[in-house]
């Protein structure tokens, strides 16, 4: 993103910025290298040998092998699908409910305790119950995941409903904006600034809970199941390959969110002045 916010005088020159960026990249590359080196050395120590920890070489080699198997991609796909389904359900249910509750003082007062109580129950504790009801299935995972991810969205949407700025709506009325424009330029951006942090929390929580539920419930053919299987069957290489996969999945999701955030919320004060 172009750096448009630099002020005259104190602004570093363009080449200076570039040099700093290169230096940072170099630093970070060194860190990654150091991390793998440390992992390798650690895997040689007695402690790690007893725990049968493979080095990065073995894990990455196994990961490479797995990349060409259908099981790997099926497991990854199933997990991503459960996660995405649960998030979609939460968005569709949580945001409208939250906005409605937030618009009404009475509705907020009435639901406050119930929401507070339900959201403090760790959703993974529900896994035994959902296991009895749905068995070791994807449905079970989606249900548990929804119970974890809906709260941040609901609560931030309630804030969005509560903090709707009447001035903005007056401005929209004076300009005689049509309802489409009003949604596009006033309601959505305003609500988004509140809902976005909730969505970010929901996304990460959902990923953790999806894999957690798969692990506890050993939902067949999922990433969590493969992790558990590798541990039970004592295949450390495979286990670490799948953990690396989970890590990469998390990083990819986070990276995508950051990109979307820059596109959507560039106007928000918290985003200004960042490159």
């Amino acid at each position, binding site marked *: 993103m172009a750096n448009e916010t630099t002020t005259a005088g104190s602004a570093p020159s363009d080449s200076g910025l570039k040099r700093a960026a290169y230096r940072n990249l170099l630093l970070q590359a060194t*860190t990654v290298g150091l991390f793998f080196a440390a992992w390798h050395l650690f895997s040689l120590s007695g402690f790690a040998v007893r725990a049968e*920890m493979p080095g990065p070489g073995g894990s990455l080699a196994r990961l490479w092998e797995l990349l060409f198997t259908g099981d790997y991609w099926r497991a990854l796909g199933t997990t991503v699908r459960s996660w995405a389904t649960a998030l979609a359900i939460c968005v569709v249910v949580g945001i409208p409910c939250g906005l409605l509750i937030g618009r009404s003082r009475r509705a907020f007062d009435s639901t406050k*305790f119930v929401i507070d109580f339900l959201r403090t129950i760790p959703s*993974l504790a529900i*896994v035994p119950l959902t296991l009895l009801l749905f068995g070791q299935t994807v449905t079970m995972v989606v249900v548990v995941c929804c119970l974890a991810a809906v709260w941040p969205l609901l609560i931030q949407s309630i804030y969005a409903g509560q903090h709707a700025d009447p001035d903005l709506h007056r401005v929209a009325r004076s300009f005689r904006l049509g309802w489409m424009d009003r949604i596009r330029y006033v309601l959505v951006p305003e609500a988004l600034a509140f809902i976005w942090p909730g969505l970010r929390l929901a996304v990460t929580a959902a990923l953790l809970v999806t*894999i957690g539920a798969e*692990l506890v419930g050993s939902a067949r053919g999922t990433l969590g199941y493969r992790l558990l299987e590798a541990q039970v069957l004592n295949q450390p290489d495979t286990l670490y390959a799948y953990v690396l996969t*989970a890590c990469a999945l998390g*990083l990819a999701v986070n990276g995508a969110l950051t990109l979307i955030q820059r596109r959507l919320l560039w106007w928000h004060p918290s985003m200004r002045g960042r490159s």
Partner: protein
Amino acid sequence: MSGKGRNGVDVPGRILGFLWNAWLPVVLLCAIWFASAGSQSFFFPSLERVVAATWQIWFAGGGIVTDLVPSLMRLLAGYAVAVLAGILFGTIMGLVPVMEVAARPVTEAARAVPGAALLPISMMFFGTGEAMKLSMIAFISTWPILLNTIEGVRSVDPTLRSVMETYHIRPWHRFRYGFLPAAAPQVFAGARISFAVAVAVMVIVEMFGTPGGIGFFIRHAQQTFQVVPMWTGLVMLGFFGYALNLLFRVLEKRILHWHYAMVAHSQGGQQ
């Protein structure tokens, strides 16, 4: 806080506010009670039986001592380590930008990795005992605090920094009276996320770990098809979580009261 009055002048308003807060939970509870009365369903026993069994197992039977207290101790110990480590390393990294930039791949990856995926690794290292449980809780819940502390320390007012610089304030005092209070609201925001994470991790590690703990209790009840005890475990966990959350909020209000007062002041001096 709805009342404008002080010293409880606005009594009717308070009572009305309380009624608005209380009616839905009461109605829901009654609805569940009567809807489930005489339930023959295996999975959804009547609330009456669950309540009776909760009393039997957890209070009269001493379940609180054998299962709830160990969970609480585990949670607090792991969380305390996470808070200390998060604040310490977060402050250092917030003060030394080069370090933060260099460590970013690691911190980002650690934050992004779904913690549950690390469970099998932890089990290979530490088995299923206490060491596995504590290390998982501490490790996974460190990151939200760490990242928020970095943000908080970095956003300390530059003027305050220069003032401390000018007066040659000792490093410990700078940390104690300068950076820590200034970063505290952010740190608490991270601590709250961390806490929720810690509770979630506690439940999952207990489900896989050695006996003792509410997570183990719920999982064990399910595996032996004792549905009523399983429900009592969920009820207890609900109250446990709610009570801890309440405690957290009270603590935050006490420690950050100056911050709330400042925000209220800058927003027009109400309250």
